[in-house]
């Protein structure tokens, strides 16, 4: 029964290339997943990391014993509200485009005296430890909940980042000849049981950035988009991308600009 439905769904999607949202309501299993995920988001453990991140933002720390309250996330020093939804953006002080976590790490280095090498050594959450930039990014992201994604595209470097990010997205290489588009460039496909949104289409591109940072049920850990892209490249059979690198900021610029104008719901729950 379920199989027949799924096969029917596959055929329908292939034939008409329906938008994913519509395809999902036709799949009772996916609809059930969505329903219970919504229930779980009403009390999301991500809030614990948001609270921790707020404390880390406001409390003096690092070798320089400074807080991050002078950190400029693009809307002026210390302005957190709405900043996440308006990144990646160009920052004149570093003359490059930065995504939220890249900027937070930059502030931890310049304001608090941390070393990039130390922060990049183990940048992702494990069962036993959540790196500070992850909690801080969750806090910053939570302060854009309910706002529309509006990453600026006025500076030439912001436009260049979008264009380069698009090239990166479609670049096929590696042991399996994959690009990001191999999984995320076509409508209505699944990898195993997971629906694959088409990030090249505005109405689906939101799914690249929605729900991140996310509390991942697997392992019960908090992850940001930096982790998500890192793990994509692992599964793409590529070498490893540098943590908070300009290349990832460019890719995030491409993905976020594609989702422009759509509402960010704040930190989410992921599988």
């Amino acid at each position, binding site marked *: 029964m379920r199989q027949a439905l799924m096969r029917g769904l596959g055929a329908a999607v292939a034939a008409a290339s329906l938008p994913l949202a519509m395809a999902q309501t036709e799949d009772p*299993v996916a609809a*059930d*997943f969505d*329903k*219970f*995920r919504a*229930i*779980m988001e009403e*009390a999301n453990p991500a809030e614990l990391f948001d609270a921790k991140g707020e404390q880390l933002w406001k409390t003096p720390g690092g070798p320089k014993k400074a807080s991050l309250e002078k950190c400029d996330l693009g809307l002026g020093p210390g302005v957190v509200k709405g900043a996440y939804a308006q990144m990646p953006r160009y920052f004149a002080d570093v003359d490059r485009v930065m995504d939220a976590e890249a900027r937070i790490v930059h502030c931890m280095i310049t304001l608090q005296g941390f070393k990039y090498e130390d922060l990049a050594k183990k940048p992702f959450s494990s069962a036993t430890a959540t790196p500070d930039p992850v909690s801080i990014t969750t806090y910053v992201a939570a302060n854009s909940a309910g706002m529309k994604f509006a990453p600026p595209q006025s500076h030439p470097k912001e436009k260049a980042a979008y264009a380069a990010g698009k090239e990166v997205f479609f670049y096929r290489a590696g042991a399996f000849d994959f690009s990001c588009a191999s999984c995320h460039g076509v409508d209505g496909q699944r*990898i*195993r*049981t*997971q629906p694959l949104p088409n990030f090249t289409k505005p109405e689906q591109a939101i799914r690249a950035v929605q729900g991140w940072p996310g509390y991942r*049920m*697997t*392992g*019960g850990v908090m992850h940001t988009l930096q982790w998500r892209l890192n793990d994509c490249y*692992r*599964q793409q059979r590529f070498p490893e991308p540098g943590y908070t690198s300009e290349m990832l900021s460019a890719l995030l610029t491409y993905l976020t600009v594609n989702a422009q104008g759509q509402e960010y719901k704040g930190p989410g729950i992921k*599988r």
Partner: protein
Amino acid sequence: MQQTRRSVIKAGGALGLLALAGTALLKPGRAHAAWNQSAFEAKSAIDAMKALGMGNAEESKDIVIRAPDIAENGAVVPIDVTSNIPGTTSISVFIEKNPFPYTGTFDFAAGSVPFVHLRAKMGETSPVRVVVAAGGKHYTTAKEVKVTIGGCGG
């Protein structure tokens, strides 16, 4: 302290239960006795229910379990339980196929709403059994939750 406590738990038996009973006395207003080690260590739901004195629970349609038919991820399965049985004092949850099925008992003050939302780990597809205590009697129902591997292996 930690080491002592853990070895007490490992040792189990009368001494362990005594020690646990001791800590329970420190908690004001607990509706029932100490953390029931023999129930929590039981390998089957029925043994756990017996250890809790719920072995003779009768089937009831007045208990509502809301849980997914298929869990997206067995590590976090959301379960809502509502009891419509008057005078409900506690709700107990058993995940029958887990290595230790007894998952917990939730006690309610007199006159409160007998509802609880929890999230549990499920190792495999299993009935989720609920036992409600009301007016000195026990009532039960169950709902099956499927747990699949899913996802890509990469």
